[in-house]
């Protein structure tokens, strides 16, 4: 089966049969969108919550807000319908912990919140999620059925 790797600050779309995967998600968030009627899957690997917070925002796939918009655009080109889209999200871990408050280290949590906000604005329902914690995740989105496989080191494997 065709397997497409999605890197950090990148996104991609596939029509069944095929798998989209992103390896070693840490504080970034993997956003999986799926249209089961047309069997179109899309996966974004975002790094930051908002393109509006910073000046250098040319790479749309880097941010939750613009990344989701771009992902939907690309899925529609592949034959997906926006009204059919559902979402699954994973990642947003806090890999290192410190006593002092450090917004950079809480970035995982902020990425998850921004992703949820954006999806809710677009009326896309989040069916399931595996977010937070202090460990990395590898995810695989299957375009055949929209299942999202989440693999970790020492925290199990599950399908959400």
């Amino acid at each position, binding site marked *: 089966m065709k397997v497409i790797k999605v890197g950090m*600050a990148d996104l991609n779309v596939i029509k069944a049969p095929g798998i989209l995967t992103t390896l070693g*998600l840490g504080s970034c968030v993997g956003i999986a969108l799926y249209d089961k009627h047309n069997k179109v899957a899309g996966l974004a690997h975002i*790094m930051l919550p908002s393109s509006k917070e910073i000046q*250098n925002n040319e790479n749309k796939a880097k941010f939750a807000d613009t990344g989701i918009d771009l992902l939907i655009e690309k899925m529609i080109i592949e034959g997906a319908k926006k009204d059919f889209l559902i979402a699954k999200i994973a990642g947003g*871990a806090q*890999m290192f912990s410190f006593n*002092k408050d450090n917004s950079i280290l809480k970035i995982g949590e902020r990425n998850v919140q921004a992703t949820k906000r954006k999806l809710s604005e677009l009326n896309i329902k989040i069916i399931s999620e595996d977010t937070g914690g202090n460990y990395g995740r590898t995810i695989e989105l299957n375009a055949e059925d929209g299942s999202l496989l989440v693999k970790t080191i020492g925290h199990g494997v599950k399908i959400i």
Partner: protein
Amino acid sequence: MDVNNLNDMMIDILGEIGNIGSGNAVTALANMLSKRVDMNVPQVKILEFNEVATLLGGEENLVVGIYLDLDEEIRGNIMFMLDIESAINLSNMLLNREDTVEKLDDMAISALSEVGNILASSYVNSLSALTGLKITVSVPSLAIDMAGAILSVPAIQFGYIADQVLFIETVFKEGDNTVKGNLFLLPDMNSFKKILSSLGVL
């Protein structure tokens, strides 16, 4: 200042800073172990986000990362990374244990954090002496996980200002080759500017 606008001289100077800083760090490690520790010439690297995790054997490779925050006049962080076997070997050496310990227990984690602390402090002390800039180092935080997940932390810090990550990498190995690791110095872009101007380059 932009990651893409660094000229060769700036890159050479950053490399030299890495050389002096990690030289001191590696000497400290050698003293701790009473063994020879070699290092390569530090490399100044500018990588796309996609390429970052291909360091250290790929995104899913199990590694130990020890992360320390830099603050005051230079901000950013220092990361000390080892593959899991090297981490186990190093902790066994530090604790004078037999090689039978196959997992990192609390003792090992604490010993490795302390190594991270000593390496980072010696690196930063020489950086501070060289530039006259005040730098403080946080307590170390350690994670055992996929390389991609650990490297996402410094990558995100660069994500705010650039589409690449700029860092100074030093690869070192203990004489018998049972411990290999990487030291990454990742100052933020403003700090690069400060470092270069403190040395009269900017």
